[in-house]
């Protein structure tokens, strides 16, 4: 099962061959765990592994040092096989202090390895972490392998002589640890050395030097010290993945690039207007750095202003985009209604987080499906698309732009906190292989009125200010179907409401039919998912199929409108389970729209679904599955 150390080592080599391993780096917020994790991810990627990461950080920027709520962690699953998730459990836990040990130990597999910095296990830190007794002595770590190293003092030994203060020198602890883990997995530290040089070399050469020294010292420690225990040196081979050029990509990065790609394919320019909010802000940051592509980014005074500016931008001819998270999208709803009424293109990115209200900003959830599909005053339909993984965000963002511009409608693009922060190797797309979908603007005054619909798409013309002879007025007040002028006619309102609905509904004819991700149409059981639950569902279903269970995986990109064949497809299974990180939002929607008796597998803990949770649900649903073969 993914996430377990399957030892298939050749006895002649010193290094044990393993096909995948999960490592979790955990420490204080100030310990640089995210950085350590992302460097390690790059190293794994460069070594040809497939991988998935899970940065798990606290909401507080500077929580009190040593507390459990200040623990920041980075989990990576890498291997020579295809990796679908960041792993249910870890094989190795690196704990930089007692608090990190305390919050992370529960998910270390039995027999797993704990590497801990004994230098940080002081009386004071133990108390701060809430340990009554030292866990190293009270037997609570008995079922694990323990590697205690005084990383603090060894780091100080190498870093301090290079001219750093005690505090600065201690900050190099993470690099020392990374050096050791590089040695454990036979990874080349050189790219990290280069990276440190690039990052600090110019401004603070002594900091670069000290970090490099610490990294090398950690590596050397592995090589020379006598490290006890059976499993400390491993090789993880290259994964068999599709040939081509790869890079690591984070969800919010891929999503931002996808938005730009879509904008270019539509022959437009982008105005992104946003207000900072976790975990959506990186979209604003990434796009603010892409001005050379003509991208204009506007940090508005709030989310309402952001969406209004984006709509104003679309009105005047750019593609308006606004990116936020649940609380911010809630604020935008009135304005989105105006974009629906005036039929202007707009992309609303919602990187979902745990709620309600502020909830748990840094934790993931999929609980804004209702908000996206139904969450506006009046009859106000708009398409909703969902992203399943960091790499998938690129293509789904392009699709969102295609639909928004072709049909002159706002589109919601759903991502979540897990996808936004997670990274995965990505087969870099070649833009020359994409088919452009240029969006024409109206220029001909002959027979023009602003709500004259294209008979096929039902889209109205996009006539932007500055175009000679096309002066017109639009707004939120209902307008006449035939002239576009203000109208309070009862029959006209019915007609316009129907037209707005029909326009969105018939987009279903312009999207692919729903396919089956794993398995085949028809059978005993289908697990249906959307968004970031893709990895665990896919791996769980795959594992159970290997064991002979008749189960399929269906994963939706199109939440609204639903693919035309979805009802028929779901009805071809004896049973349908919708697995999602909310209390049953997609399930309700499918039951209401398709009349299928879907059941739910629901989890709302702020943590991603686990593979084992999928497997258990399958097992419970299909007790005699094996006999069915």
């Amino acid at each position, binding site marked *: 099962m993914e996430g377990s150390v399957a030892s298939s080592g050749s006895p002649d080599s010193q290094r044990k061959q393993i096909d995948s391993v999960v490592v979790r780096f955990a420490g204080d917020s100030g310990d640089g765990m995210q950085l350590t994790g992302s460097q390690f991810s790059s190293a794994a990627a460069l070594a040809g592994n497939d991988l998935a990461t899970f940065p798990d950080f606290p909401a507080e920027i500077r929580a009190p040092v040593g507390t459990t709520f200040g623990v920041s962690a980075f989990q990576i699953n890498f291997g020579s096989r295809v990796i679908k998730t960041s792993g249910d459990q870890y094989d190795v836990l690196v704990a930089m202090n007692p608090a990190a040990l305390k919050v992370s130990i529960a998910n270390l597999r039995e027999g797993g390895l704990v590497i801990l910095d004994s230098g940080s296990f002081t009386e004071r830190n133990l108390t701060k972490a809430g340990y009554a007794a030292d866990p190293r002595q009270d037997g609570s770590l008995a079922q694990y392998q323990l590697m205690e190293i005084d990383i603090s003092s060894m780091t100080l030994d190498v870093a301090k002589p290079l001219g750093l203060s005690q505090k600065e020198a201690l900050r190099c602890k993470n690099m020392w640890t990374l050096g050791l883990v590089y040695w454990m997995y036979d990874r080349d530290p050189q790219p990290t050395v280069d990276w440190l040089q690039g990052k600090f070399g110019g401004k603070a050469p002594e900091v670069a030097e000290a970090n490099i020294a610490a990294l090398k010292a950690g590596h050397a420690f592995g090589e020379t010290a006598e490290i006890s225990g059976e499993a400390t040196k491993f090789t993880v081979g290259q994964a068999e993945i599709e040939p081509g050029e790869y*890079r690591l990509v984070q969800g919010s990065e891929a999503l931002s690039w996808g938005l730009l*790609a879509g904008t270019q394919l539509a022959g437009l320019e982008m105005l992104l207007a946003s207000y900072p909010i976790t975990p959506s802000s990186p979209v604003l940051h990434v796009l603010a750095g892409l001005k050379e592509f003509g991208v204009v980014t506007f940090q508005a005074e709030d989310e309402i202003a952001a969406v209004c500016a984006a709509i104003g931008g679309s009105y005047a001819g750019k593609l308006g985009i606004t990116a936020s998270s649940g609380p911010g999208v809630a604020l935008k709803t009135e304005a989105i209604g105006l974009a629906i009424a005036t039929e202007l293109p707009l992309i609303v990115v919602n990187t979902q987080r745990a709620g309600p209200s502020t909830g748990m900003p840094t934790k993931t959830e999929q609980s804004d499906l209702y908000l996206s599909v139904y969450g506006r005053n009046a009859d106000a339909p708009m398409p909703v698309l969902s992203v399943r993984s960091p790499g998938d965000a690129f293509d789904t963002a392009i699709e969102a732009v295609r639909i928004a511009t072709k049909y002159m409608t706002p589109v919601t693009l759903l991502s979540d906190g897990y996808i936004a922060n997670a990274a995965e190797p990505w087969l870099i797309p070649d833009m020359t292989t994409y088919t452009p979908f240029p969006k024409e603007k109206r220029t001909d005054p002959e027979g023009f009125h602003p709500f004259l619909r294209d008979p096929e798409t039902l889209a109205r013309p996009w006539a932007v200010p500055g175009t000679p002879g096309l002066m017109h*007025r639009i707004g939120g007040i209902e307008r006449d179907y035939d002239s576009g002028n203000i109208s309070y006619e009862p029959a006209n309102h019915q007609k316009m409401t129907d037209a707005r609905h029909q326009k969105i509904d018939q987009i279903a004819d312009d999207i692919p039919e729903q396919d089956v991700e794993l398995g085949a149409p028809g059978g005993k059981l289908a697990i249906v998912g959307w968004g970031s639950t893709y990895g665990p569902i896919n791996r769980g279903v795959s594992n159970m199929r290997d064991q002979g269970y008749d189960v399929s995986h269906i994963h939706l990109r199109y939440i609204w409108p639903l693919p035309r064949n979805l009802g028929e497809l779901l009805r071809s299974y004896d049973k349908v389970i919708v697995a999602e990180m909310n209390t049953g939002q997609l399930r309700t929607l499918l039951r209401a729209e398709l009349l299928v008796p879907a059941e739910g597998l629901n989890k709302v803990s702020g943590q991603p679904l686990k593979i084992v949770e999928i497997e258990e649900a399958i097992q419970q649903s299909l007790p005699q599955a094996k006999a069915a073969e």
Partner: protein
Amino acid sequence: MNAPTKLTPADFATDQEVRWCPGCGDYAILKGVQKTLADIGASPDNTVFVSGIGCAARFPYYVNSYGFHTIHGRAAAFATGVKLSNPELDVWVVGGDGDSLSIGGNHLFHLLRRNVDVQYLLFNNEIYGLTKGQYSPTSRVGTRSPSTPQGSVDQPANALQFSLGAGARFVARGIDISQKHLTEVLTRAHAHKGASMVEIIQNCVVYNDGAFEQFTAKKTAAETQIAVEDGKPLLFGKEKDKGLRLDPKTLTLEVVTIGENGVTEDDILVHDEKNRIIAGLLARMSAPEFPVAIGVLYCDPVESYESGLLGQVEAEESRHPGAQLNNLLRDGNTWTVGD
């Protein structure tokens, strides 16, 4: 297109039936704006009126140009997006006192602070017209309305002091019925690069009739208004014998009469459009103790927001000509998996 012929105010009218109450001050303002558009040679193709919601905000329907009637309070934000999308457009924003200072106070503050190059026309009738007469953030203490039957108790906001506080670089005031003066003020607002705030005193005949009578009545206007002009002494009155004097000890203005108590014209404060302190003192003058200041109270341009922001985009574009998405995607660490 045909060779441009000079357009008249009538060319800026639409075929839409105007739906304001008969006698509403908004008609006069519409006339003043249409006259201004003709005077300045505005091109209907390139002109955009953006509004929120309210009686005032119906304005775009009646101007032959591009128009966007948006949602309550947010016109400033839409207009910002319009300018960032196409800075060449000539953008006018129209909002009532509720639209601009209540639900939209936040956005107006930021539009002015950022200095987005638009003309913001705030129609101040000190009441919520469209929703049938509730008091507004500019209503005076004691205003009786359906929602304040015993009279309002909260202090009103002063639109121009608010604007100056927000950092506006152009602040002016006009009156619906003072057509000629209003057109001059609007022409100045249009010429100003950056956000131009124009408060237009507007009579709501239905819900707040006569609210401004004290200083707008034609007969007494000379004594109750002061039309300020850059570089000129702040004089008013039929005989131009009254003026404003600054008391340097208290940093306040006082009304004095030339020839009385030894006051000469030299004692009168000279208006300086670039002086934010004077503008603040003028903005807060209210009847009956003071004449109400109209005209351009403050004008001191700096670079507009969209010019600065789009300048950065242009600079990056010329630093990386022909930037390719394919290269961006391949920037940094990549590796190749062989066949």
